[in-house]
């Protein structure tokens, strides 16, 4: 079979009109370079891989640098090459197989890819992040927490006396943990509290002012302690890192890897927890309170008190805005309390510490 095309010799850009003949063991290229007739023979094994992706024009590249080329403007040429040299690799790319399957092949492949992305985003990534978060040493978490702590508390003033009392209060709860918990009270009317990885719990004065009894404080600390103990921040970081990587892989954007670094440690606070993690912390908190015979109604009261503040004019409690859906939370906390039997004991030390803390706030 003979095809017409152009031959480029790799030395200049002249395209010599040529007749191309597909023989069984070689490709014969005959052309006239303006002076005399030339004949060149190509070994099929030295032809470079080609997906025949382009419509119409087919290029074959041959040999070492500087490469020779032939250009053929005939769609039958691709078919004929496959028939003439069935065992050669140059026409067997994965992509050319795909093109030969047409629309159906593309559609199936697209469906597989979408399913795979969904699977990894909703199941594989969370599982992997959870697993990774569990293997991180406490020391690493502590460093991360401390680094973001110093950035967050910068410019705020800490109530040293109340912080001491709060730590005493927390120790009176007798929660078992490998983490060294350190509670810090910040003098600010913001109604918020949050836990940092590694054991720091930060409580703002605003949220203390809305509380009426020691059980509410116990509930708040139990909730924050659960975030620390269940490594929620660390899980969150791994989760957002891995999601970010998935997205940057999908968009073919390696610059995303650089962008991760630019994210600062102080963004930790803004990450916020998902509803599932919040619920987990609430329930774990209730469980701990039950074990220590502290009245679990404290948690319900705490949410109600915060909700009331939300209703009144002025500042919306940040604790709620970062912890969404108060009504739903109050409901499941109430249900959780109703589900179990509790034996409640008096905690004189907690009560007296609470009074001291509250008294210090009034000054």
């Amino acid at each position, binding site marked *: 079979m003979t095809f017409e095309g152009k031959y*480029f*010799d*790799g*030395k*200049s*850009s*002249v*395209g010599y009109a040529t007749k191309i003949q597909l023989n069984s063991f070689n490709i014969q290229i005959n052309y006239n370079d303006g002076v005399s007739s030339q004949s060149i023979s190509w070994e099929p094994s030295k032809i470079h891989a080609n*997906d025949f*992706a*382009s*419509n*119409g*024009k087919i*290029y074959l*590249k041959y040999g070492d*640098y*500087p*490469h*020779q*080329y032939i*250009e053929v403007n005939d769609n039958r040429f691709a078919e004929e090459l496959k028939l003439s040299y069935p065992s050669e690799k140059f026409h067997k790319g*994965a*992509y050319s197989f*795909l*093109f030969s399957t047409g*629309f159906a*092949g*593309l559609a199936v*492949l*697209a469906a*597989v*890819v979408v399913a*795979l*992305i969904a699977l*990894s985003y909703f199941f594989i990534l969370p599982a992997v992040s959870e697993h990774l978060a569990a293997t991180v040493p406490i020391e690493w978490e502590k*460093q*991360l927490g*401390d*680094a973001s702590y110093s950035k967050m508390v910068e410019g705020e003033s800490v109530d040293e006396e109340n912080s001491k009392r709060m730590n005493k209060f927390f120790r009176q709860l007798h929660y078992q943990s490998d983490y060294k918990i350190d509670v810090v009270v910040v003098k600010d009317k913001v109604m918020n509290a949050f836990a940092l990885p590694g054991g720091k719990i930060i409580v703002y004065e605003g949220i203390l002012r809305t509380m009426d009894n020691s059980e509410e404080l116990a509930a708040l600390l139990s909730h924050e302690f659960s975030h620390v103990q269940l490594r929620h921040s660390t899980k969150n970081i791994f989760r957002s890192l891995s999601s970010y*990587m*998935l997205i940057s*892989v*999908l968009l*073919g*954007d*390696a*610059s995303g*890897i*650089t962008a991760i*670094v630019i994210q600062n*440690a102080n963004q930790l606070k803004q990450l916020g927890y998902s509803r599932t993690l919040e619920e987990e912390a609430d329930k774990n908190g209730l469980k701990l309170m039950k074990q220590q015979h502290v009245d679990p109604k404290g948690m319900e009261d705490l949410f109600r008190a915060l909700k009331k503040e939300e209703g009144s004019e002025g500042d919306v409690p940040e604790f709620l805005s970062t912890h969404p859906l108060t009504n739903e939370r109050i409901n499941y906390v109430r249900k959780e309390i109703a589900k179990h039997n509790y034996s409640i004991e008096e905690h004189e030390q907690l009560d007296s510490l609470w009074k001291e803390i509250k008294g210090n706030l009034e000054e």
Partner: protein
Amino acid sequence: MEIVSTKVKFYGDGAKYFGILIVNVLLTIVTLGLYYPWARAKNLQYLYGETEFAGSRFTFHGTGKEMFKGFVKAIAIVFALILISQLGAFSGSKLLAIIGSLIYLFGILLLIPLAIHGGLRYRMSRTSWRGIHFGYRGNLRELFGICVKGILLSVFTLGIYSSWFHCNLRKYLESNIRLGNCKFSFEGEGGDLFIINLKGFFFTIFTLGIYMFWYIRNLNHFSINNSRLEQDGNVFSFKSDLTPGDIFVTGIINYFLIVFTLGIGTPWAVLRNMRMVIDNVELEGAFNPDAVIQTEENYADATGDDLLSMLDVGLDF
């Protein structure tokens, strides 16, 4: 018969491009990202192969293997910098934290000229037309000087100098690009670019965004109409016929293509955009497409190209 202009034309086909991207995504996920360099090579091979100048297509010769080697080196460099800044941040000492982030910042700044230099050398060497290879012959030290001066002056003048910086950079880079024995150059002046940007900024605000289409057109014309190609002592100019109407229509259609297909139409939109830009370009004058002689040497280190992609430095090749 005298040739008055040489056209550039783009033949990309959305369905085919979609197929290539979907295979790329699939393999990249399955290999946990390791396929990325091969995916990039395939992507470029396809796009170059569908672009035609004077009746012949371009070829991208880069391979996944070369780009993978570059990818590994680029990752190592960037991660070393990240590690330094993180060690500083977690050391507990404020001084070390500041030193760490300064090293990171300056490291990235110094990497930019290195990435442009290496990236352009690799990309040009790996691009050919009619078997004739492109080449970049710039000198790293000179490029370095242009970048340091440009970045510092841009910072001190609150960004005003950046138009001049952009032009100086383009002049240096383009004047060092060869297609065989043909030589490129760029004649855009910083002052003109500054006025385009100034007008673009204020008029876009005053006209509630409508001027944007003229602004994009002006930038496109500035970039292309100031590019030159010299062959055997004759200088030819590139010319773009892109109109604000083209940009508006393509933009609207692409918007619907992406939004109403939940993103699946993106490959089509990307190609429509490329076609719009490329099909409007021509080289004016009697350029002789049969008289280009091979001159450049082979160059296969892709580190710079991968760094460019990681640092997200946009260069219009």
